[in-house]
């Protein structure tokens, strides 16, 4: 900070500051606290991500099962389908 002339007070501040810079401060250990805070700060969706994949997989599997079971579902819903098919076949 080179500026014109220093006043008496400024010279005093500079000399005290020179001493102050030699201060040895007490150490801090914030590792645990920082990591804990970071976990709390994590976006809300992050912990749910595996659950989201699981749900998507379950929905896909259910859709496939539904498609494969469609013919059997018709049977289950309408027991007369088999009778009608058999009648139709025997008529031929």
């Amino acid at each position, binding site marked *: *900070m*080179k*500026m014109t002339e220093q*006043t*008496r*007070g*400024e010279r*005093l*501040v*500079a000399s*005290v*500051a020179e*001493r*102050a*810079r*030699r*201060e*040895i*401060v*007490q*150490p*801090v*250990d*914030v*590792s*645990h*606290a*920082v*990591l804990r*805070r*970071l*976990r709390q*700060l*994590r*976006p809300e969706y*992050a*912990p749910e*991500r595996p659950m989201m994949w699981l749900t998507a997989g379950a929905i896909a599997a259910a859709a496939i099962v539904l498609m494969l079971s469609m013919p059997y579902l018709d049977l289950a819903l309408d027991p007369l389908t088999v009778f009608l098919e058999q009648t139709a076949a025997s008529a031929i």
Partner: protein
Amino acid sequence: MTTLARPIAWGVRIPARFAAHGTVMHSGAVAVGKAAVSDPVSEEDREDISASLRGDDSAYARLIARYQPTIGQQMWKYSRDPLVVEELVQEVFVESFVGLAQFRGQAPFVHWLRRIATRVGYRYWKKKSKRHEAEAILKREAPDIAVPPDDASPREAAEWLHLLLAKLAPEDRLVLTLHYFEGLDMNSIAERMGWTRTLAKVRAFRARKRLRVLLEESGYEND
């Protein structure tokens, strides 16, 4: 070393300069088997930053352990309360993690941390000064502080300087703290604050004028 059961994965996009660790450096220099000589970021920092971005919390814990003494030392210039200092140091490392993907690696990692620390400290002053404004209107608080003797300890000197600069507005206090307390010259202040040299000089000039007034009012300019 702290290891969490769940890694701190944020799903951040890892910048290429850290994703391709050890192969392509940010400067474009190619490191074959060893670190490029021109790289301002140390090899261990680069490794830990890269791993932290991938969600390795123990890598970030290593970075904290490496730099918390430096940042702790710096934050003592912003507060003399050990609890506040600890909180501020925490804040610096939380902010640095959140912005880690933006670290460009064009200067040592500690420079980047120091810059964040300055911002955190300044923000603390601003918040504190707003809180105390109302009180200050009611009672003109200007506690007179005796000049520390020549054989005063560095701690006493630091206490005095802290009390003196605390009487200034945060923006003046910041420039003078960087200069007197941290011992930075004009170029370093400009670099730390992301200012031009001219802006740094203008701000320092104004701050110094106010310091002179304060010193005069406190009787330090008299013989």
